[in-house]
């Protein structure tokens, strides 16, 4: 199915994107892209052809289709600067931020745009990501018994800047086979939330322990460190090496060290941060 017209009629305009008519007129050639059109029940790829503009990103192309040919084409976006993580989708089967991916990268190839596959499809390129916010709510938030302003030195907090960069695009969740293939939604929190738990656990002023939750509720053990999440992270967080593995080590130290295990049996669990005895069933 091809829809290739619309230019020149009254619908030839563009609201959301920054490419207006004058830029489209400077276009050199055209771009073809195939976009998934459908909803939770199913759908199909539809091919569109639009004017090519120098430096255009795939989001520009999708928004041009929306303005010129398919006003009801659903796509999520906000900042168009790779800061907000809204426009996550899959291009040729790989998770990408549509606003950060240039059309020129696909010269000589097809461009097939689909919604993220690990989540239910709402419509077209929009998938239902609200489960992620439920996981977020289940993580024990930052907790401290000290009063800010804190004295913390750059060398003490340097390693926290990396996990703090996360823009919640949920592409690591999308690519993770524990979610994508095995659908472990209730029992596995996913890479995004290990990244968050990492900074919470490593923050010098935080007094909570989330190791019990990581082991039980958040299913850290399901991850077998294939690094798929690291590869797709648009802000280059080394999720596997710097978030997941250190957390796995902490959980192992806490729960699988025989001496600690014996102490727990006798005295109940101690908070790894404060040393306070938390009871035999964890905190």
């Amino acid at each position, binding site marked *: 199915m091809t829809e290739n017209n619309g230019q020149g009629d009254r*619908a030839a305009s563009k609201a959301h994107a920054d490419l*207006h008519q004058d830029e489209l007129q400077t276009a050199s050639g055209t771009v073809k892209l195939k976009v998934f059109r459908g909803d939770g029940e199913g759908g199909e790829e539809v091919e569109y052809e639009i004017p090519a503009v120098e430096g255009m*990103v795939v989001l520009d192309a999708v928004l041009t289709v929306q303005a010129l040919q398919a006003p009801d084409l659903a796509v*999520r976006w906000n900042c168009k600067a790779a800061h907000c993580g809204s426009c996550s989708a899959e291009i040729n089967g790989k998770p990408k931020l549509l606003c950060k991916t240039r059309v020129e990268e696909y010269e000589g190839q097809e461009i097939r745009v689909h919604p993220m596959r690990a989540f239910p499809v709402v419509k077209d390129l929009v998938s239902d990501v609200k489960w992620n916010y439920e996981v977020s709510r289940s993580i024990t938030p930052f907790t401290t018994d000290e009063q800010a*302003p804190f*004295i*913390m030195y750059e060398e003490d907090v340097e390693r926290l800047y990396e996990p703090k960069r996360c823009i919640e695009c949920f592409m690591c969740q999308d690519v993770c086979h524990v979610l994508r293939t095995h659908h472990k939604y209730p029992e596995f929190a996913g890479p995004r939330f290990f990244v968050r738990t990492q900074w919470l656990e490593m923050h010098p002023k935080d007094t909570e322990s989330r190791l019990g939750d990581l082991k039980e509720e958040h299913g850290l053990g399901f991850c077998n460190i294939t690094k798929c999440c690291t590869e797709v992270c648009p802000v280059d967080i080394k999720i596997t090496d710097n978030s997941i593995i250190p957390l796995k080590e902490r959980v192992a130290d806490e729960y699988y060290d025989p001496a600690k295990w014996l102490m727990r049996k006798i005295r109940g669990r101690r908070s790894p941060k404060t040393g306070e005895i938390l009871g035999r069933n964890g905190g």
Partner: protein
Amino acid sequence: MERDGGVNGARDRHEVNEHDVLIIGAGGAGLRAAIAATQVGLSVGVVTKSLLGKAHTVMAEGGIAAAVGNVDPDDSWRQHFIDTLKSGKFINDWRMAEIFTKEAPDRVIELEQWGALFNRTNEGKISQRPFGAHTYRRLCHVGDRTGLEMIRTLQEKVLATGAKVYMETTVTKLLKKDDRVVGALAYTRESGKFIHFKAKAVVMATGGWGRIYKVTSNSWEGTGDGVILAYNAGAELMDMEMVQFHPTGMVWPPGVRGLLVTEGVRGEGGVLRNSEGERYMENYDAERMELSSRDVVARANYTEVTEGRGSEHGGVYLDITHLGYNNILKKLPTMYEQFKNLADIDITKAPMEVFPTIHYTMGGIKVDPETCATNVPGLFAAGEVAGGLHGANRLGGNSLSDLLVFGRRAGEGAAAYVEESDHSTEIEAFEVDAEKRRVLEPLEKPEGDSDENPYTIQQELQEAMMEHANLMRNENSLKEGLGKVLALKERLGNVKVKGSTLFNPGWHTSMDVYHLVQVSEIILRCALERTERRGAQWRLDYDGPDEELGKINLITRKDQQGEVDIEKREIPEMPGHLAELFEKEKVS
């Protein structure tokens, strides 16, 4: 997270949800207000057009201005107050500025208490960087992603409270009973299901309206819904002509035109040059150079290009290469990535090309500085949608602290109002039905010959505002612009969209465009009214500031015929303890 509907079609059923306080908008101000209102035990609903954590606050790069004095111990709220008023050309609400500069440090420290992480000084305190027209190094920051740190901290704090968040939900009308605001009607973007929110108080925190212009640093959300919903409900607006052009937006490639280049680049020593290699800021503000106020730097960049000294793609050059690779990657990592990925420019080796881009709207809903109450009982406002604090020009970094200081005050103000009142939030059923019919009309009416595509109207509007209400203005051009906008207003009734209510951006745009057109008309009318050069309002047909106009704010309200009424209202005299700050300054 309430977002799914179940009901698809929306014609006959709608959901009813009741909260003590309804907050519209989930940027910095809305989230801070939600925290304040939940802390006193009230039921709070937060409505956002996007997913949680995606609001425009996330785009703020430079930092949070607050006179903490960690780097420059001589800094004080007084100096911050002086800088804010000077930059705002003295039409700011001085009481707002006083509260703001006094409370900003506590609000920053509170973020740290909630887990936000800022860059540190050698003494282990929050680090502060210099910024345009701030006397001291004042911006608390983390690299160039301070807005992300702030919104994530607030978001996680809100998720840890009992507040209910309605994601991807758009409000179309404030509902009133006996002159009080008692709720709102909204639809969910996902399914089109309508929700009638009943609330004793409503906090408007919807941000600005930068999407009225073609070249903008604003996301699709900045369509001015909040300011027009409040205006339609009878709220007074102030100084709507004041629109900030950020001096440095990207110019190339076309796909990224208008994308923000943080003022942090100049804060860290970035230098502006024209095509002749001249560091031209010395001709505009020899003392402060690149760190002059935004209105001055934006006009300088604009002038250099229009006078033929522009770069290849119609901008000026911003050069940070002297900072060196390591420092650039540490202090401006986002900018490095942005130029590398989107423009194939390595900013450690080559200068950036930049040109002014629409950034911020200083005007907005007029509020009481203490409680953020508007003149309409039950309606509060905070953040960019509110006016007063920034006057004729906002200082960089003052926006993030504005969100925190007045977000909190609005939440507390609304909570106090709820606790004092026991009014009913019931309204007549026909009012809800009438609003549902209005919203569905573009979708449900039969097709006809005069049908208009909402995208066409939006684009024509953006071009008209770009041409006629830009950073240099004059009477003839403003009048011509007004004519175009009024003609577009006439055409709004013809908007027709196809498809269903299921996540249909064409339908959503048919609502947005109404707000965009109305707010543009107000801006043009106010810009015609303020016949002088003051801050962001730069009338080429007048020579300079006008002493008499420096004593007034332009107050806009909807009159009984539904037309824009503008009043010149005198600014109350500054009390002695504030006025004397400027006396002392003159002596020293």
